[in-house]
């Protein structure tokens, strides 16, 4: 059910968020006045042309960067849990740790009991198909496997919300489809609130409950679209649904103008 607009209480509130950078020609506005409420349990997608500030927005939600104006509020249910865990774009798992130690990273830092770490990490390695590779080092793994480790690490940390910054953008089409399905399967277990950044319209429609389309720089919220597909979803069956094509087409209509604007600015 796409319930984001209705019933569920808000989990994340962004109020008038803005981010300005100092750069050579002067001040650059990366994000301008973004206000949005994200419902608890919502798989929230942010789509926008490259350079629209969507990664900056996510880093602000993660607390890795400070906004120039506005506020981020995450409504916490359990103070003992970390607020967020991020799955980064590209290789972010530590090359000097085994798959197991990478997945256990957040729990070990928090000093969680060893038996609990064994149980939780064992569970997520199993869910990501990595059990066999628990003692392997990242350089022995393919790109898709590494990103599975990053997924296991974020889920094992058991945060209030999950943040994902184009986690599959470096993967080939086949791996991407596989990982999208696996991510949905793992996410279904607890349905934590997710904020997922992508430049792929297909990915947004496949994974999300709600999609925010951003304008080219400065990034603003241009449109908000609810995705009607029921869960659990099959990534492949979804594509046969006539509504899928219609939705992708509609979002592209909103996005096209922004992509062209971003390109025009890049060529100046």
């Amino acid at each position, binding site marked *: 059910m796409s319930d984001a607009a209705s019933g569920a209480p808000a989990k994340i509130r962004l109020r008038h968020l803005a981010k300005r950078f100092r750069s050579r020609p002067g001040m650059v506005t990366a994000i301008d006045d973004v206000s949005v409420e994200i419902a608890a349990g919502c798989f929230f997608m942010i789509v926008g042309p490259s350079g629209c500030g969507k990664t900056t927005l996510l880093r602000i939600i993660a607390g890795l960067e400070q906004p120039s104006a506005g506020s981020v509020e995450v409504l916490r249910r359990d103070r003992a849990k970390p607020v*967020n865990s991020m799955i980064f774009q590209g290789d972010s798992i530590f090359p*000097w740790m085994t798959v197991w130690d990478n997945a256990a990273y957040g729990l070990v830092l928090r000093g969680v009991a060893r038996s609990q770490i064994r149980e939780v990490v064992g569970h997520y390695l199993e869910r990501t198909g990595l059990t066999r590779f628990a003692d392997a080092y990242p350089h022995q793994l393919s790109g898709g496997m590494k990103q599975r480790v990053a997924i296991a690490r974020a889920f094992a940390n058991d945060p209030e919300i999950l943040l994902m910054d184009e986690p599959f953008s470096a993967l080939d089409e086949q791996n991407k489809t596989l990982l999208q399905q696996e991510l949905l399967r793992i996410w279904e277990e607890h349905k934590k609130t997710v904020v997922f950044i992508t430049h792929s319209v297909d990915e947004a429609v496949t994974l999300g409950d709600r999609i925010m389309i951003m304008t080219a720089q400065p990034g603003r919220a241009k449109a908000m679209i609810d995705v009607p597909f029921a869960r659990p979803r099959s990534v492949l069956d979804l594509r046969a649904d006539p509504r899928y094509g219609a939705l992708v087409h509609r979002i592209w209509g909103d996005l096209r103008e922004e992509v062209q604007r971003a390109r025009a600015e890049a060529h100046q």
Partner: protein
Amino acid sequence: MSVEGAATPELPAPVVEALDAESLLGRHFYELLSVASPLALLGLWEASARLGVVDARFFPAPSGVAETFWSMARSGELWLHTEASLLRLLCGFLVGGIPALALGIAMGLSSLLRALVEPLIAATYPIPKSAIMPLLLLVFGLGEASKVAMVAIGVFFPVAMNAVTGVLEINRIYLDVGRNYRASRWQVFRTIALPGALPFIMTGIKLGVGLGLVLIAISEMLGAKSGLGYLIWNAWEILDVNAMYVGLFTIALLGFFFTHVLNVLERWLVPWKTR
């Protein structure tokens, strides 16, 4: 939830095994080569000395040097000197290396500290270490402390400088991960900065050990009554050329030995580095 299977250590995957076997073969081949080249040089030298191609008074045949080596080893004299040098080397290495490691990593993590300390290192690094021996003798006297200080100073620079580079070379994304997972300063140091910089740190340690051997020999030539440097200097004074070569050869052996040990240590400490 059934997690028992996942909790017990798994057999390494077939892919991993195949990779290891391949690199093991290559590794042994290169180890063989690194033994063969010094042996070939020794053979050439022996032949030249015997055939009179080189002056045997200055370049005695390795077989003759080996004889002296053997008799000095049996009398315990050689070990006495080696032990003295090794002890100074170890002390100097710890006194210089540990602060260098801590400072280097801290500098890599803090741009403030880098700005403060980097010019000092840049200015003092090019001073030849042997040139400050008289100063060290003034400050520390003729005893052990001046020798240890000499090695410590020599080890300090390569270890510190490589640790800084090592931390700076760590991909920023790993530090972001550390922040995202709320790692404390100490946890960032222990789980990211130290292991991430370890390949560079090992390079620094190898350079430091080499430089330490050079400096220990030099410092023992002045006011020491033991050590390999003393052995060499003393042999020159009494013109015992064979004994001099024994000293030189022992230092060379130590260098070879340390390089090997450190390479093994590196493979053990940095199993994740692809080579």
